[in-house]
């Protein structure tokens, strides 16, 4: 089963993604390596800080753009992993090791079967 692991991080954990700004910095590389070594990683990406986002919306026949992320939350989507594991229990075990779990939150979602 494939799952997306969405990393929600605090803004201060991810400002400019410099290790000195992120107490979890050294842990991210180690976590990604562990996923790769386990042979479960399918894909993923780290995102730039949410202030770099541009949001596009077409509503009531009007095109609206604004600077910044779609959802203004305290935790921001900092990146994601796609993994292939036997079941939800295994996906949760990986999510718990994700550095964002202890500083922000991690959301685990099954991918739709195509």
């Amino acid at each position, binding site marked *: 089963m494939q799952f997306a692991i969405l990393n929600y991080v605090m803004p201060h954990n991810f400002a400019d993604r410099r290790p000195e700004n992120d*107490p*979890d910095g*050294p*842990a991210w*590389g*180690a*976590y*990604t*390596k*562990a*996923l790769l*070594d*386990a042979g479960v990683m399918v894909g993923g990406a780290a995102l730039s800080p949410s202030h770099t986002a541009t949001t596009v919306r077409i509503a009531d026949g009007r095109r609206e753009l604004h600077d910044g992320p779609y959802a203004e939350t305290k935790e921001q989507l900092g990146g994601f992993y796609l993994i292939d594991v036997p079941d*939800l*229990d295994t996906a*949760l*075990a990986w999510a*718990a*090791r994700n*550095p964002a*779990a*202890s*500083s922000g939150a991690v959301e685990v979602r099954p991918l739709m079967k195509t």
Partner: protein
Amino acid sequence: MKQATASMAAELVARLSYGKLLAMLAVRSRDIAAAEDALSEALLRAISEWERAGVPTNPEAWLVQVARRIDADRWRRTVSAARGAERWLLLEDERMSEPARDVPDDRLRLMLVCAHPAIEPEIHTPLMLQVVLGIDARRIASAFLVAPSTMGQRLSRAKARIAEAGLPFELTDRSALAERIDAVLAAIYAAYTLGWDLAFIDADRSADLVDEAIWLVRLIGELAPDHSDARALLALVLFAEARRSARRDSETGAFVPLYEQDPTRWNQNVLAEAESALRHAGRLGAKGRFGFEAAIQAVHAARRSSGATDWVAIEHLYRGLLLVSPTIGAHIGHAVALAETGDVGSALERLDALPYGRSSMHQPYWVARAHLLNLNGDRGSAREAITKAIGLTEAPAIRRFLVQRRERFADN
């Protein structure tokens, strides 16, 4: 004010006697889920009833009587009037004349059912935590790192299985008791190790689980005083409990590994009780895994008077442990002890010999491997191994500890 007293009284009974009351109900009806429903309904009624008429002199007896009536009423509604009445009469009969039984305490019977071979072993501990201690499924799910809805389903399925399969709440002879207690002890041990592992992830839940494991193992000790493994398990959990606060730096809260702990911060009273339980287990002839594990802990604890750790003794004890219980943890502990006695080469060979499938995702394996490689002077490989350990670590305090350790490997 009166209402506060009534609800406080109900809450107090629920907290202190939940397992006992549920056991009394379930042992008779053999339906744990129905007994839980009846008991929570009785607790709700207690709040309004006790507010009106005052708290009864024996609140537990009141709750059991009301819960039995609720259970019988429900049964009557769902099945048929005749069978419900029959069951109610049966229950009343049982209440009036308590038959002599082999196993004296209803809670032990309930624990034995929770750890029945027909129930999947993975659910033994969650089931026991819920039905004997009344912990809710959400909290159990968090502790076991399982989705709350999944944990709820697994618990309900197990209870349905107990009811449908008619798992016996009676034990016909003592030898069956001895056999089944092992499964109960394994479930308690699982609760305790989980509590230990959670110490740096969720300190409150960790303390709760460890306390609950200690409580359950003490209860087994009372119910089966001559069971050597139960004594040994009590010793083991108490040795660990004595070191609980010393695992954290008192100022920074950082993780402190066993070999760097200040023995004066260990709880001396708890250690004395652990040592006494271990001696008792030894007199009873404990030769199982808990005996060896507790003895290893006793050698570590002896550092508080001798000032040094007797690694030769620990290495011997791990060899004994491997004979009765060759878990990956025992293999790792043995390799570390062997390295501490000076034989780092053999220790690394032993780690290499472990099947990759068992070790590759096991965080303690990579911590131990990094330590041994560093002792062997191979800092590059030690760094790689510790990076792997960092990637597999869940607790932030331990992750920080390992990141610092990795920097130390680089500096040298």
